[in-house]
């Protein structure tokens, strides 16, 4: 029954989206308040119906209703409850439903909280959101229906891919989608501004929190994905330059640029049309991120069911969304005011440089991801673009940006003096210099690069601390008060930039000092590795809830004491697949990573990795996300949303 209810709710949502995509746009053009109000109600109702449909699918999963084809393909009665629930978005159809759900919820959010917006602006934003809703609900219903029944229904389902049965699945996709889809709001605002031909203060105040609200989960989602890949895939990498990773990195890079340019627009009214362009491109790249893997154009570990019909539909949506909005931009942007004035050396100038580098980095990832496709189209030759390419292109462009990050917050708005800026950065410069001098004597060319990277991390960390330090030093006479009155946006900025420093430290540690060893071991044997003594104590078969595993136990004596580790090779009979469960000992100074491989005549193959400082990569990533959240909680950012107007209770409206 739940599948039919879900199906019906989706169809109603599509009809409501149709209303939402027409009524408010026409209403705004004619100044018709009734039509605009209709748009708001449609957005709220659409949110409710999509939520109902999502609930129905989740219910079918939780109750193991194998007469629903999707559930039968991705669930199993022995699958733990949490993963039965998370399996709701573990398939192509289910994840599309989640995507549409988040889109509809954001649309409902604009309708609900947007009372302080100019009515025509809100109506236009909702109208564009409605158009997106129609496109994606249509895609869902016509090419990826999650509610199809099968008859006769099987007694048992096919298990969800065991790689996905992980706490990572519960959080990673929803976080990423919150990010991708979150950028749809700034996209809709951008298109609405182009339709209106003007950008006012309310526009700028609204866009920045929405960008931040998308950026925070996207950052957390990417970080989580990286950590998940690290512990789940069993060979200890944290970033693979896989097309899907790139697809999430591109909107992140450009979204970061948008976050900064929106700040300039909000505070100073400069970079107006550039911000609009960024909003359009960031969402377009988010669409690329979610959908291109599904089109079968790119192959990747993440590829879901690939189907040419879906591919054509997706490419159509992408082409229309991006093409139409860019055409609108080319037509209307020149009529938007040019914005405020500033000197080259100023906060605005700093953000311009930040945007330049972030845009170039995005372009680099784009070229690396799509060149193989284009080259194959041109001459049929297949090439691969792997980590060595990015090491030669992305890294040299990212390093100057990391160096410049510290300058931005030190610059005054509008104009500044080089001498004064340099003076403000004396302390971080001294700290970075000391780190460089201390690290330089060790090692050859690689040592020089490592020392430079360490100094860069120190520069970022000390430079971020300086933001708060200078403020508190100036107000040291009333220290507790000046700490209390520090705007949260400033704290968030410090935490986020310091997170970047920690990330740099982690990357430096693991790229410079990684070591590994592979050998055959039998129970009782010991091996010396990276300053530790590792002994295999036990090797046996164990039975899990839905798998059987060859499990090896180790005792490790290291500089930090003695501990035990467990590593498994699991076999999931119902999914007919094998996973590696690595044994990982995490410390701030470095991780020991142990995975067991195939059995051989001399025992079992054991792979050992030492990953110095690697954990700071993820701590840094989450710190950036937390910094964003602190910034979002700043009262000043809530200006646009603070006033909650009483919203009329949604009335049912005919869906025709």
């Amino acid at each position, binding site marked *: 029954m739940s599948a039919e209810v879900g199906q019906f709710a989706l169809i109603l949502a599509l009809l409501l989206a149709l209303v939402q995509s027409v009524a408010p746009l026409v209403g705004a053009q004619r100044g018709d308040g009734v039509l605009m109000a209709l748009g708001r109600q449609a957005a709220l109702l659409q949110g409710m119906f999509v939520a109902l449909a999502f609930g129905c699918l989740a219910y079918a999963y939780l109750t193991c209703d194998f007469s629903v084809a999707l559930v039968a393909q991705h669930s199993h009665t022995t699958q733990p409850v949490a993963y039965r629930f998370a399996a709701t978005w573990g398939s192509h159809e289910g994840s599309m439903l989640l995507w549409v759900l988040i889109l509809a919820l954001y649309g409902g959010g604009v309708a609900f909280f947007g009372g302080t917006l100019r009515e025509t602006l809100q109506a236009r934003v909702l109208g564009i959101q409605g158009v997106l809703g129609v496109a994606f609900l249509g895609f869902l219903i016509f090419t990826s229906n999650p509610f199809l029944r099968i008859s006769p229904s099987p007694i048992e389902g096919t298990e969800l891919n065991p790689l996905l049965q992980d706490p990572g699945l519960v959080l990673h996709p929803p976080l990423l989608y919150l990010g991708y889809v979150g950028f749809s709001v700034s996209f809709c605002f951008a298109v609405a501004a182009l339709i209106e031909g003007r950008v006012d203060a309310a526009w700028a105040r609204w866009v920045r929190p929405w960008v931040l609200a998308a950026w925070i989960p996207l950052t957390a989602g990417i970080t989580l994905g990286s950590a998940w890949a690290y512990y789940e895939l069993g060979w200890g990498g944290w970033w693979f330059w896989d097309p899907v990773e790139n697809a999430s990195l591109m909107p992140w890079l450009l979204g970061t640029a948008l976050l900064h340019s929106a700040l300039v627009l909000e505070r100073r009214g400069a970079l107006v049309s550039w911000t609009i362009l960024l909003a359009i491109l960031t969402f377009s790249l988010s669409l690329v991120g979610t959908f291109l893997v599904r089109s079968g154009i790119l192959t990747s570990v993440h590829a879901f069911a690939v189907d040419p019909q879906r591919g054509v539909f997706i490419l159509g949506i992408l082409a229309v969304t991006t093409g139409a909005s860019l055409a609108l931009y080319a037509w209307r942007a020149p009529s938007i005011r040019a914005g405020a004035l500033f000197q080259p050396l100023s906060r605005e100038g700093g953000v311009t440089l930040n*945007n*330049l580098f972030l845009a*170039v980095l995005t*372009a680099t990832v784009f*070229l690396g991801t799509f*060149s193989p496709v284009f080259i194959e189209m041109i001459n049929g030759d297949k090439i691969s673009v*792997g980590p060595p*390419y990015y090491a030669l*292109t992305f890294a040299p462009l990212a390093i100057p940006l990391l160096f410049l990050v510290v300058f931005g917050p030190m610059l005054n708005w509008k104009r500044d003096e080089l001498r004064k800026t340099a003076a403000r950065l004396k302390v971080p410069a001294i700290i970075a210099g000391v780190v460089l001098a201390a690290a330089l004597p060790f090692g050859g060319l690689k040592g020089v690069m490592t020392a430079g990277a360490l100094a860069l991390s120190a520069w970022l960390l000390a430079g971020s601390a300086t933001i708060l330090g200078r403020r508190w030093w100036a107000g040291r006479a009333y220290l507790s008060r000046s700490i209390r009155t520090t705007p949260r946006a400033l704290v968030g900025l410090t935490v986020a930039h310091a997170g970047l420093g920690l990330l740099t430290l982690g990357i430096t540690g693991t790229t410079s000092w990684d070591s590994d060893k592979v050998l055959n071991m039998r129970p009782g044997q010991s091996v010396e590795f990276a300053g530790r003594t590792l002994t295999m104590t036990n090797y046996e078969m164990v039975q899990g809830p839905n798998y059987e595993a060859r499990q090896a136990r180790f005792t490790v004596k290291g500089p930090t004491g003695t501990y035990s580790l467990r590593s498994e090779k699991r076999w999931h009979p119902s999914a007919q697949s094998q996973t590696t469960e690595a044994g990982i000992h995490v410390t701030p100074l470095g991780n020991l990573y142990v995975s067991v491989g195939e059995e051989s005549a001399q025992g079992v193959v054991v*792979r050992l990795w030492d990953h110095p400082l690697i954990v700071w990569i993820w701590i840094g990533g989450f710190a950036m996300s937390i910094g964003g959240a602190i910034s979002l909680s700043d009262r000043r950012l809530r200006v646009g949303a603070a006033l909650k107007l009483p919203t009329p209770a949604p009335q049912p409206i005919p869906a025709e």
Partner: protein
Amino acid sequence: MKRLLPIVAALALLAGPAAAVNPDEQLADPKLEARALKLSQELRCVVCQNQSIDDSDAELARDLRLILRERIAAGDTDEQAMDHIVSRYGSFVQLRPPLRWDTVLLWFGPVLVLVLGGVGAAVYVRGRSSTAAAVGALNADEEAELARMLDGDKVG
């Protein structure tokens, strides 16, 4: 930290080659094995998605690792060994794409975008600041006020 660094660095050097390579595949000569390892990190496992043959457990990756080590043991230079594998499997196996006429944009695109973007940004900033000098007498608040008034004009 300062005292730890040389220890960590020394350990990194001592640890020697290895990764997904099974112990029985490794070459006896550590110098040759180190070369093989370095090359294998630049070769793609063709049946996997974006994994180097060094990272992959797949049967085909193992075959490629063995072919590579055979060539190196037979006295091939790095380039010869690489060419041998590319001639058999195509440039698809190279994780570092070769520089050819059709990959020029891939390799130099980032720099091109940086230069073009840099020029664009410079022109924009100059445009913003040369006028700024002329009206520099206004402070930030006055400018915002002015902008608001001008904006209001356009609408009204």
